[in-house]
Every structure is written in structure tokens, then in C-alpha cells.
């Protein structure tokens, strides 16, 4: 009757002195694979977002969580006056990156996306711009 209990306790005690297998997050950081699909970033070239507001990513997005609104700049060119992703709805499929004809979008290794308010999950263009 008592034996199984002691055997169990033995295993517990043994593991107390072994190296832990779980990651000690947040003191330890995970090694995120380079092709991990985390938070999106809008790539920047010549100090401007590369995005030309072609609307292909909102068109392909299965979660319908991307909002783009095109604008016309002073050279009559097209740019994204609004670019927003609702991270609460995103399923991190990466279709948007694949659809982009000008390679303006990527997914980063950032995965810590928790927040307190719903509004804070809507990432604006400013928040999405690639940080160099």
C-alpha cells in the first residue's frame, strides 16, 4: 500500500535534482526559428514602406483581418494611407506575405502579442513598420 507512494516520491525527488526540460520563460528566451510566422512587419526601402497598397493581402487573407486604404502621394503614386492588421483575428497563415507582389511584407519572430485592451491588438501601419 505504501510502496507505490514511495516509488512515486522517488521519481519526484530524482527530478528535483535533474536539469529541467521546460523553458524557464520569461527569464529564458526561446530560440525562434527563422521561418516562424509571428507579428507582421512592413518592409522599408528608401525610408518608405515598400507597400504599394495593391490590396492583394486583404484579398487573400482568410481571416479578413487586414485593412488597406490607398492614397495618392504628391508624385501621383499609390501608397498605403492606412494599413492595419487585427491580430485578434489573424491566424498567422502567412498567405499575405506570399501574395505580396512587391515583397513588402514579412512575418517576424515576435510572438509576444498579449495585451490588455482589444484596441491594442489592431496594429497600425506605424506599429507594423519594420524596425531597423
Amino acid at each position: 500500500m505504501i510502496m507505490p507512494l514511495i516509488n512515486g516520491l522517488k521519481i519526484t525527488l530524482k527530478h528535483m535534482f535533474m536539469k529541467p526540460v521546460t523553458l524557464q520563460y520569461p527569464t529564458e528566451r526561446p530560440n525562434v526559428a527563422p521561418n516562424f510566422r509571428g507579428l507582421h512587419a512592413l518592409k522599408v526601402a528608401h525610408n518608405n514602406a515598400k507597400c504599394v497598397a495593391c490590396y492583394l493581402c486583404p484579398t487573400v487573407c482568410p481571416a479578413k483581418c487586414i485593412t488597406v486604404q490607398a492614397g495618392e502621394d504628391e508624385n501621383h503614386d499609390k501608397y498605403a494611407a492606412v494599413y492595419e492588421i487585427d491580430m485578434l483575428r489573424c491566424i498567422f497563415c502567412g498567405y499575405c506575405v506570399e501574395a505580396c507582389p512587391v515583397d513588402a511584407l514579412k512575418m517576424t519572430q515576435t510572438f509576444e502579442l498579449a495585451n490588455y485592451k482589444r484596441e491594442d491588438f489592431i496594429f497600425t501601419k506605424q506599429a507594423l513598420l519594420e524596425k531597423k
Partner: protein
Amino acid sequence: MVTLTIDDKQVTASKNATIYEAAKAAGIQIPVICHDKKLNPFGGCRMCLVEVEQMKGRQIPACTTPVTEGMIVRTTTDEIIKARKMVLELLLLKHPIDCPVCDAAGDCDLQNLTYEYKVNTNRFQDEKFNWKIDYENPLIERDMNRCVHCGKCARICDEIVSYGAYSFINRGINAKIGTEYDGPLNCEFCGSCVSVCPVGALVSRPFKFKARWWAMNKVKTVCGYCGTGCQLTLGVKDSKVLTTIYDENQGFHNGQLCTRGRWGYQFINSDKRITTPLVKKNGSLQPATWEEALNVVSAKLKEAKSTPDSLAALVSPRLTNEELLLTRKLFKDLLGCDNVDHSAGYAHTALTSGAKESLGYPASPSVVADVQKSDLLLVINADLYQTHPVLGFEINLAVKRQGSAIQIVSDKKGKLSKLPEAKTSIYKPGAELLVINAIAKVILDENLLDSSAQSTGGFSAWQKGLESLSVDQAADQCGIAADEIKAIARNYAKAEKALILLPTGMGYPGHGKELAQAVINLALLTGKVGKEGSGVLILGEKNNSQGAADLSIHPTSGGKSALDIIAGCVSGSIKTLYVAGENPVVSYPNRKLVETALEKVEFLVVQDLFLTPTAAMADVVLPACSFAEKDGTFTSALGAVQRVNRAINPVGESRSDFRILNDLYNAVSGQPAFTDVKAAFQELSGTVAGYAGLSYDTLGDEGSVRPVSGTATFVPVAAAAPATESGKLALVTGSALNHSGTLSVYGEGPMLVCPEAYVELNREDAKSLSISDGDQVAIKSSTGELRLKAKVGSRLPKGVVFAPYHFADASINTVTAGSAVTFVTIGK
């Protein structure tokens, strides 16, 4: 008929058909780029190559090759596919691949064919074009770097629009579509070229970057501007109308629109729309709830029920048939008030009294198909092109493609005068009636009348009325030489098929009952009514003017007409005035008088989209919906009853006129007049002549031309010599091409091209008054005085000036008071 084999399929086609047309009719699609069913065959792009066995398998263009008996055609052999691929490769050689930023993407023939034929590499290499892009004109962005040289823009502008803004310039690889001196485009901006451009070389500037093609809902409906009744597709996203979309299969006009139909949609989602009811409190209009506003209005209506003579309603012919029916039920049947009218009372009399008395029905005896079947078109007033532009396209086609002759009698020249071999006879302003009577007199004198005329009712009385008319004297008075009048009369009488076109409208007080009767007399005299390609088209001005005439939205049992209602407001006999969609302050004669009337009337309700100068004077303003926010039907000037479909949700708290009127009906009587629009249409089809047999559900996308029937009679019309005042200029009013009524001024497109009121003068007059183009001038009549911008040109004869009536800020009714001609002095 010819029988041939296409892709092993037996096909019969008319002997004038091309291989492309025969294949299409048999359900076999041959790809095309430069072909358009509306245009003459061109054969420029070679995308439509097919093989014909009898031609030893040579590849020939399907779009230009006529079918022959026994022809054996193959449309998709390996060789053909190879050839088509090469065509695409060559086009893509110079074409910038900027689909991501090109508004045509998704609706681009080049993109679609490239995808279909899997052209993903290119054997050839060259630099791209580097043409300067035309950003300078307000409506059309022209990027010739994207052009595939199909020539459709130049061809449609020449063949159908008859403007001729474009042509190919330069040679070889440097060839491109150029404008006059290769400068920025400056044309009538009908947008036809943008519609047919297979790529994104021509795109709409107001719509630029607003949405992608595939993200929009496409809603078929009818244009809400003029009586032509063009069918229209609205591009809608997020409950906003973003653009108009071209659909070559819509309507008699094959999807073509005029400048206001194409670009004038922005009023629908304009920031200036009224979004809540407004009620006057302490002297100013304050936002209110619907309940409050409707309570105030219904209390007044109930009060007026015991004294229906003190109540009056002015209703816009822009409302749907169902709404007009509801107006009639509410005011005439329920409240017992016959003081109901529209269009200032005079702009509909050509139909409601003229045609009604002469033909027995308030409509035209002819339909649009008659235009292209006619041998001679007799156009009364060259402004027809301004009032009904897409009908103008039909006239262009009749003259240029079918070889009809065209005779214009007018007080000014116009675009139609420039058609090949067009004859224009200019009369003195106000003499139109005299001219028509003189033409009829010549026909009588020379015994050119049709045998049917004498047996038509009223002939002898009418003939008697003309006995005293001397053609020479009339010629003297009207300003057209007697020989010219005689020639017109002979040509008209002798033409096998001749059609008279008479535009009407608020800008044309002279085009009323008498003129309509005079032209109908003329048509009856020569036996031209009731024959294909012949007859008379009397063109109501607004989108549903014809509907309003069919439904008798005017006094029918002794009530006051619009102008009497205004007078009644001034004298105090009208105490409550209900205005639905009309803008009398700007568009009725004599602005001062109308303003006095609206100030004096005790209670004024205005139901409108905008806070117009009329609405600003109201005690209660009810926000109404535009045509894009409601369902119903319009009847075009050409007799087609067509469905209007709701494309977006009502803007703000606005409600459809139908709902507002139905709620008021409910408040007054205790039950609504109709359960819904469909029920209203049902009642309409049971009570309005010609609508029997139409059903709301089966009207479909095409609509249906409702029949007319009645007994024609001659009605005598006396014509006086036109008035003259020495030393003064004769002012005539009318429509500008970019505008329709007072609604289009809320559209961004029309305002980009024609933003303000103006007065147009002849060069000589301008010179003698030392006025140059663009000057501000003072124009003065016995009614009032106004400052307007001068526009100097050669369209008008000496001594005549013209002003359009659409603009609220400097409305021409400040100086006019409803006569066909106003004598004015002009100075700086």
C-alpha cells in the same frame, strides 16, 4: 444566312456577320483586344487570329473577316495559341507591369489574357515607354505607357461621341494616342474612352485608387439625371457608391453614358447630405428626431384636410413612379388637394397638355429605336445634345453610320450642327412655333401632305387657322429665309421616314404645349406618326419626367399649377406648402418672387437630399434618399419602364421618399397606403394606361417599353411673331452638358469641369461690349440683375446670349421670369 463550321460545330450566321460574331453567337469565345461590338471593325491587335481551312490554314483575324458559306474555322489549334502568345509577349514587351498600382487590374483584358495564355516569360527585350502622364485634366488620367494601341478610345470618340479628341500620332514603335498638339485632354468628358480602354491607360481620376475592381459590388440601376434613362452599374463598397462601372450589355446605349451619368455620382455620398430631420425652432433649423418632425408635418396635413385649397405640393419628377403614385394618393385622394404640380408647371406641358390633346396620351409616339431607322432627323433646338446627351450619341450614329440626314432648327448652333452634312437653320429666339407653323404652311401650299391627313380629326379647323399665315412674312419675322423654310418643308414631307426630336425642360419655357402640338400637327400632316423610323420624340427633362406625366402629377380637376401655387403663397391663399425634391428658389422663374412666396407661406416642408436654398427656408426639412438608396421604377422619355435598385444603405438617418410619404399617409389616415414598393407598382399597373401587364418582378434588368395608344387630332396653334426690343440682347436659358437640374452641382465630377454659372455671348457682341472671355459682367433685365462670368464663343448668333440654369449661387432666374426670351443689357 450562311452556314459554316467553327471548331467542328455547325453554325448559321447572317451573311454580314464576322467570324468572331458567328462564333460568339454559337457560344465559342475568341479572345479580342481591339474589337468592340459598338465600333467598326479594326483588326489591329491580331489577338483574334483563327485558321480557315479554305485559306490553306492561314491565320486570319476573326473580328474583321466576314463569314462565307461552308467555311471551316478552327479557333484553338496549337499554332494559333502560339501566335496569340506571341501577340501578348509583344504587347508585354513595352507594357509596364504595374498591375499592383493600376486601377484596371481585375478588369484588364491584357491581364486576363496573359493569365489565360500563361505568358510568364518573354523572349523579347526592350526598354519600356517613358511618356509623360496626363494628370492635368480633371477627370481622366492618361498613362500612354500602358496603352496597347487598340485604338478603341480614338474610334469611340470619333464614331459614336463624335468629338474626335484623339488620334494616333508618331510612327512605328513610337506611335501613341495623342490629343490636339499632344497637350492635356480637354473634351466633353463623356468617359466613353475610359469605358472601352482594355487596359489601364485611361482611368478615372475621381475614382483613382479608391477600390479594387474585385472588391466592389456591382449594382445595376438607372441613371438618376436625365430623361434618356440610361442603364447604369454602380460600383459599391462599404455602402458607398465609389464609381460607375461600364457594362457593354446594358441598355439601348450599350453601357455608354454621358459626362454626368459617368462622373456625377458623388452627390450620393456627399458630405453635404442632410442626415437628420430639421425643425425650425426660434428662427433657425435644428436637428430633430423623425418622430418629432413627422408629428409636426402630419398635424399640419390633418389640419389642412378641412381646407384642402390652402394646401399645395410641388413634387420632383426625380422621384420613382411608386413615390409619385403615393404623392397622388396622399394629396389628391386622401387630402382632397389638387394643387399638386412639378417642373415649374410649364416644363411638362409639352407632354401633359400638348401630346395629351393631340395624340390622346401624354407621351411620345416614337421610341429610341426609331432614331437609327429614320431617313431624316428634324431636331428642334440644338441643345438636345445638352439635355439628352446619350440620345445625342444615337443621333451621331444615325447620321454617320446609317446615313440619315439631319436638319436642326434652333436659336443657336450646337454640337449636332457639326455632324456631316448637318443643316442648321437659326431662328430668332422665341420664333420656334412660327417656324414650325411656316413649315406646315409650305407643305399645305405645295400640296405635299399625306393622304391620311385630311381624314384625321381637326384637320379643317387647323388648316383654317393657318390660312392667314404668309410664309414670306413668317420668314422675315423668324429670321430664316423663306427658301430655307421651303426646303426644310419639302425635305421633311418627302422623306420616307422622318423623326422630329423636341427636348423640353425647365430651361426651355418656349418648349411647351403649343410647340409640341405644332410639331405633332406637322408629323400628322405628313403621315409620319405611327410609322417605324418616323414620328415625334418629346423628351422629358428629368429621369422620371415621363413617369410624372403618365401618372398625371399635375392639377387635374381645377387645382393650381406650380406658378399659381407660388402666386397663391404670395397672396396668402396657400398656407401649407409641401416640396418634395423640387428646388423652386433656383429653378422656377423669378427667384425674388419665389423667395417672397416661400417666406410668406405659413408652413413649408421640404423633403430633399441637400439643404438647398429652398430647404433653407423651410419650417421642417426631411432628409430623403438618393436613387442609389431606394427601389422602384423610372419611366424614361423614350417610354421604357426600368427598375431602380437599391445599392447602398440610406445615408445618415435619411429615408426614402416612399417611406416618408407612406408614414405621413399612415399618420393622416390611420393606415399606410402600401405595404411596400412592389404593392405600389401593382396598383400602378392596374390604374395607369400603358402599365397594364407590367409586373415589378418581371421588368428585370432590361426594363420594358410601355405601349401608348390614343386618337390623334390636329390642334390649331397660333404663332405670334417673336418679340424684340431694340438695343437689348435676347437671353435664352437652358442646360449645360455637365449638369442636370439643380442636383448635379452636388457632384464632384460635373463641378470639376463646369463649376460655376456663366453667360455665353457671341464674339461680335462681346467685342462691341468690350467683354473678353472670363470677365465678370453685369446682366440686367426688368426682373433683376446678376453678375456672371462671360464665356465668349461662336455658338450663338449675334444679339443672343445664353445662360444655364443649374447654379444656386448666381441663378439665372434672378433675371428671368418665365418667358421664352428675356431682354437684357450686359455691361461690365
